[in-house]
């Protein structure tokens, strides 16, 4: 299953000949930048809120919109980072290091312009790498059996547990709760109803969209409502936006290098765009002849972090499309959106749905150009959004969450489910249990359960089948990487925690 250039050209023809696809991409990017630039609203929340708008439309239109939200959301975070020193999304945290000092010098417009162009370059390179690399990874995935798929699900979850919180243990508990929730409903292998207690609403298990909206929409809204008084009214001045060609040319190498780093960091399940941005920023600083300028309002710093985090968008799509393992929470939502449209991403999806896969590649590349146009044309408008009254905005978002949960099955049970999950998520976050492992477990739970049971049945109950180096070397590799990732992160966290405890004791 190599990259098929003829199918790729056909996909471009399909995309460019359908104006609705462009319109949905445009809507997605604009909505993504809007949610991204508002602190408290994330790309995940944007996708969760917009999924209901994809019902009843052809799958490609909906997926284009959600990809637009993803790309726009990651870029949008840079606007508030630069203007008010508050990253709209975690991915934009590295951008504020140089973006905000530039704004303080009266160069906010230029910083936004550099961020936009860097996002475009990084995003395009990331999308191209995704396009050319994905078919090979998918063919590799075709060799997987039940043991490998279970090990892969374990790997995906362990990676997100390792990076999503401050405690490995709390991450594991969150993932286990998510997995347990997926066992509600009909058993996928025997058809036996489990934990339904006679309720028809639970036969199919908790519906994905209401759970998603509850976790990332209502949970966040409730937090915003609680912290409402902390929100300040903001005045923003942008100024000249377009950076000069000379300025961008000077950072061309940084852009390219950051894009490559961002894509590969993004392709590792669990890492996410914030890590991609910081990795790119650190490398740019290390390689720079003037590292002392970083952190003082240096164009190269903004360019590196923005190229890195937007390249990560393409990278994160690779494991989701080819292996069915989402790279982060947003790709988990995209995977859910594909499942809503009756597609199960993975190697077989890749082989049998070329009419969807290749247009998705084209759409991801096109999304970057739309981002460039929308970003540069409406930067002032997005900056103005920051001054909008959050109290009114939050109320409207709350309404959209409720209607979004309802619109999947026109069922009030789903609304109450979303509200229940929302309040649960609010308390989980307060007590520092990460939410991303729950979402990933919710997606990967059925894959993990079915393949675990199949593999054990095939091996007559031998639990060592997953680490059998002769018959299942790929599975063994995934298990080893999972253990190493968790162990190394545990040791790092333990060290930090011990330092923290020592400080606490000294203070006492």
């Amino acid at each position, binding site marked *: 299953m190599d990259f098929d250039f003829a199918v790729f050209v056909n996909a471009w023809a399909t995309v460019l000949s359908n104006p609705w696809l462009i319109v949905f991409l445009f809507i997605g990017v604009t909505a993504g930048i809007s949610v991204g630039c508002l602190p408290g609203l994330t790309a995940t929340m944007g996708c969760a809120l917009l999924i209901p708008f994809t019902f009843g439309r052809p799958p490609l239109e909906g997926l284009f919109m959600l990809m637009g939200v993803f790309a726009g959301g990651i870029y949008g975070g840079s606007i508030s980072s630069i203007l008010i020193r508050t990253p709209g999304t975690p991915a934009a945290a590295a951008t504020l290091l140089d973006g905000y000092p530039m704004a303080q010098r009266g160069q906010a417009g230029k910083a936004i312009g550099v961020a936009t162009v860097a996002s475009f370059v990084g995003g395009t390179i990331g999308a191209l790498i995704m396009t050319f690399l994905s078919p090979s990874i998918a063919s590799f995935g075709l060799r997987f059996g039940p043991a490998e798929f279970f090990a892969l699900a374990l790997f995906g979850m362990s990676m997100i547990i390792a990076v999503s919180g401050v405690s490995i243990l*709390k991450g594991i*508990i969150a993932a286990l709760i998510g*997995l347990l929730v997926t066992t509600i409903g009909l058993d996928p292998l025997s058809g036996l109803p489990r934990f339904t207690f006679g309720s028809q609403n639970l036969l199919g298990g908790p519906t994905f969209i209401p759970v998603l909206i509850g976790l990332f929409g209502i949970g966040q809204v409730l937090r915003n409502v609680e*912290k409402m008084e902390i929100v300040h009214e903001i005045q923003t001045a942008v100024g000249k936006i377009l950076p000069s060609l000379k300025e961008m040319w000077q950072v061309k190498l940084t852009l390219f290098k950051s894009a490559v780093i961002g894509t590969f960091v993004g392709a590792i399940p669990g890492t996410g765009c914030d890590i991609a941005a910081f990795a790119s920023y650190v490398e740019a600083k290390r390689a720079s002849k003037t590292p002392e300028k970083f952190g003082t309002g240096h164009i190269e710093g903004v360019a590196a972090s923005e190229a890195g985090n937007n390249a990560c968008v393409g990278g994160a799509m690779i494991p989701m499309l080819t292996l069915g393992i989402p790279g982060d929470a947003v790709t988990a939502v995209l995977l859910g959106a594909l499942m809503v449209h009756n597609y199960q991403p993975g190697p077989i999806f890749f082989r049998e749905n070329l009419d969807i896969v290749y247009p998705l590649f084209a759409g991801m590349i096109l999304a970057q150009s739309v981002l460039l146009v929308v970003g540069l044309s409406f930067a002032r408008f997005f900056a103005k959004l920051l001054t909008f009254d959050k109290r009114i905005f939050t*109320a409207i978002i709350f309404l959209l969450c409720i209607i979004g949960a309802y*619109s999947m099955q*026109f069922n009030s049970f789903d609304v109450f489910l979303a509200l229940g999950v929302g309040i649960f998520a609010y308390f989980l976050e307060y007590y*520092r249990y990460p939410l991303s492992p729950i979402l990933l477990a919710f997606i990967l739970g059925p894959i993990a359960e079915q393949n675990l049971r199949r593999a054990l049945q095939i091996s007559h109950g031998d639990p060592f089948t997953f680490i059998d180096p002769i018959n299942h070397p790929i599975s063994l590799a995934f298990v080893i990487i999972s253990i190493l990732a968790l162990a190394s992160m545990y040791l790092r966290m333990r060290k930090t925690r011990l330092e923290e405890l020592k400080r606490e004791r000294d203070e006492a």
Partner: protein
Amino acid sequence: MKQADIVASVLLVILSVLTFMEAGNYRNVGAQVEYFGAAFFPQLLCGAIVFCAWLQAVYALTGRSLRKTEHIDRRGFRRMILAFAIAVFYWATIEWTGFVLATPVFLYVLMVVMGAKGTVKKVGSALLAPALVWLLFEKLLIIDLPPGVILPAVFGE
């Protein structure tokens, strides 16, 4: 977060034990016991949760729980609970009141609870947002929003 971790651990153990027992009912298919049947995965998870909860409780008791990084603001918490209750009430009554009548009231009350300023802005947003949502869902996406019984009774279907 010592206390919170201990309470969470106890709750997790209780939940896991109950779930484990309930899952035991799915072990048999007819007269045959299935070792890797419908009960296997949930029972495995329950075992893992109990182990993690025990570990968390041990961490808490030995003073190794995470430090609280934020505190719930009492006024903010009350406001959040109120907003949540309003949302539950809004959807619990929507079958009678209907989307068109209930939503502007819901939004306006929510904005007041959140302390939004400016009556014109609040009323305008409370009317405009539901109108846009209604148009989008009913006309563009052809998704029916709850009509309620009041408006159909007054104006007919």
